[in-house]
Structures are given as structure tokens and as C-alpha cells.
């Protein structure tokens, strides 16, 4: 899920501050064992999320999935331990996720990458390159839907040829087309002035 246009007060805060606060809040939540306090904090997290004017339509599917997972966690924990501690755990996770949505949906992808580069800058000392890693991350996020589209196209084509149940018939063209995309993207990076030598310094 990538943040769309957001002009709320949260969007104006530096990414480092927001993610730092999220980290502290997440640790703090684990120190609280009262479901009453956690319920209040959950309400607060929902208020923060709503006040950040995030796109609620964008949140619908992730929230449904999250509630389903938490439902399973609640039941299994309740059976294994006590229903009180299951409630505490679920409230904790839900509150943490609400704050995390509020932060991630009000921070642009570019700002997250910049923050990542800053946080990962000590990795330079062990030979890693944060700029290249962050480009790799953005390319992965960018091209996952593209590869999914290619997979569906290949599967459809093989289905039409009666090869729907043959994994190799799907895998081979998928790999070849993925390599082709990688080659084109590398050329585009070069054409758009990306200098891997410069970014490796």
C-alpha cells in the first residue's frame, strides 16, 4: 500500500519523527497489560488515523484481512491461554497496526526511501550501498504488479493452448519475459541518468 496525496498535519511531519514515534509507541504498547487502557489507546489510534484524512477506501481490504487474522489469533490464544490475555494481545496488535497505517499512509514513498537510506547509511562500512538497496526496493515494489500481469498473460496464453496444468509451460516464458523487463529497465535507468558507479561510492 503506497501513500496517495495527503496534506494532513501528519503528512507535514518528517518521516524520521513519525517512524521513530511509531517505534516507541509499539514498544510502549508491550508494557501495557490492561485491556481497558489498550482500548482507550485503540480509540486514540483510530482518531489519529481518521484525523490524518487517509483514503479509507484504500484501507478497506487490508483492514478486513487484518481483522480476519486477528480473529484467528484471538480464538487460538483464548483457547491456549486465557480470554483476557487474548484480548490484550489482539488490542495491542490492532492499535499498533492503526498507528502504523496512519504513519505509512501519510508518508510518501520517496520520503520512506530517503529515511531508509539515512538509517542504513552505517551499512556502507560493511560494503553495502543503501542507495542501491533503496532503488532495488522501489523497483521491487514497482514491478511486482507488472510481473503479476505478465504471469496472468502467460497463463492465459498457455490455457488457450491447452497447457494450463503444465507449470513449466508457464514458468519458462515468465522467466524469459521477466529477464526482458529487467534488461529494458536497466537500459531505462541508464537513459534517465542513473549512474550505478556514482551511487556505489
Amino acid at each position, binding site marked *: 500500500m503506497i501513500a496517495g496525496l495527503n496534506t494532513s498535519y501528519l503528512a507535514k511531519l518528517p518521516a524520521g519523527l513519525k517512524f521513530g514515534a511509531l517505534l516507541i509507541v509499539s514498544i510502549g504498547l508491550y508494557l501495557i497489560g490492561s485491556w481497558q487502557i489498550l482500548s482507550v489507546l485503540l480509540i486514540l489510534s483510530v482518531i489519529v488515523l481518521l484525523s490524518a484524512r487517509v483514503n479509507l477506501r484504500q484501507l478497506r481490504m487490508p483492514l478486513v484481512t487484518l481483522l480476519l487474522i486477528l480473529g484467528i489469533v484471538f480464538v487460538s490464544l483464548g483457547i491456549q491461554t486465557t480470554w483476557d490475555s487474548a484480548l490484550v494481545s489482539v488490542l495491542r496488535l490492532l492499535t499498533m497496526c492503526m498507528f502504523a497505517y496512519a504513519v505509512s499512509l501519510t508518508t510518501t514513498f520517496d520520503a520512506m526511501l530517503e529515511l531508509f537510506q539515512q538509517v542504513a547509511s552505517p551499512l556502507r562500512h560493511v560494503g553495502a550501498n543503501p542507495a542501491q538497496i533503496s532503488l532495488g526496493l522501489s523497483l521491487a515494489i514497482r514491478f511486482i504488479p507488472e510481473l503479476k500481469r505478465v504471469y496472468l498473460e502467460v497463463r492465459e496464453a498457455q490455457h488457450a493452448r491447452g497447457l494450463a496444468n503444465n507449470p513449466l509451460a508457464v514458468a519458462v516464458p515468465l522467466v524469459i519475459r521477466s529477464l526482458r523487463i529487467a534488461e529494458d529497465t536497466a537500459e531505462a535507468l541508464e537513459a*534517465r541518468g542513473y549512474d550505478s558507479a556514482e551511487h556505489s561510492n
Partner: protein
Amino acid sequence: MELPEIQLEQVTVSFEDRTVLTDITLTLNERRIGVIGANGAGKSTLSRLLNALVIPTSGTVRVGGLDTSKSAKQIRRDVGFVFQNPANQIIMPLVADDIAFGLKNIGLSKSERKVRVAQTLDELNIGHLADRESHTLSGGEQQMVALAAVIAMQPRTIVFDEPTTMLDLRNRLRFQREIAQLPQRAIVITHDLEILEDFDRVLVVTDGIIAFDGQPADAVDHYRQWSHV
């Protein structure tokens, strides 16, 4: 806008044991230049020579006096490239970030990037796409975003490698209009012969050589005659 002269001197390009272009000598000064020819004739390689994506095996390519084999980085700032499949050219997950990508590479500050991105999107009337996720764009929108990413870099020459191949009629006409309005030099590699009508010069590439070089109507006639053989 003063346009840099592009010179190719005795350029030959070979990949392993296959020669793709043979002994090409050309000077390009015009504002609208078309390149046509059959598949595999060497058009795309010719286009890639112009912004140093391909370096000649022998001979030299100069853009504004700079040799592509020595000054690739500078030349790429001045010669933009729009690829046939825009989906592979869009690198960032969000449109605005993608347009800012090249600007970041040339060292523009965050605030400068923001202004330049907004200006470019307005110029092409695609401001509404700024916050869209790249993979949700239609083919026509992707091609406009790819063009915006190039225009934002403010190059004086833009090379288009078969830009309308993947577009429907409506988007093709829109893209054609945008190319016509560009203040930059446009060098368009295409199979779409209609697009060339108002061009200043058209080259016909056949089997790695320039088989014809002249006015659009004559070049298209030459290409049609050759295609019927």
C-alpha cells in the same frame, strides 16, 4: 531553443559477430526527424547511439560537439529517450516520484524537483496522475508519464523509439499532437507513417544502412516501394 548538432561519422555497430549498422555518416540539424525501416533494419540501434545507450564499434557520434563514447552522462542530460514500452521505463511506484527520479540523478534539490514535476505535469495536462500508482495507469497514460519524465529533464533533443506502437487511435493522436508541440528536437523511430507528414526530414534504414534521406513524402514512397519487393 538552440538545438545541438548531431554528427555521426563512419559509424559501424556490431554485436558479437553481427553487424547492425554499417558506415553511417550523417549530420542532424532539423527539428523534426523521422526514422523508418523494416524490423531488424537497425533503427533502434541508430536511435540508441544518439544518447550513448549504444557506443559505436567504430566511428564517432557527437552531440553538440561531445563524443558519446566519452561524455555519455552529459549527453544523456541533453538527449532524452522515450522507449517503445513505457511500462518498463517507469521506475518508481508513484507517478510524481518517477518524474522526479531523473531530476534527483542530476542533483536537483527536493524543492526544485517538486516545482519541476508540477510544471511538467501541468504542461502535459496530466496533473491528475501525479499521485497515481504507476501500475494502475493505462497504456496512453503510461506513455504520457514516460514523456513527462523525459521533458522534466529539459533536454534539447528527445528520441522516441516507436512511441505509438502500443497506443490506441485516440492516444496515438494525442501523443502525435504532443510531439508536434514540443519545442525540443524530436527524432522519432516509427512504423506509423502518418506521424511523419509534417516532419522536416525522414531517414529510411534498410539492412544497417541509410537507404534514403529526404522529405517525408519521398521517404515514405521509397519505403513503400522497398516493402513491396
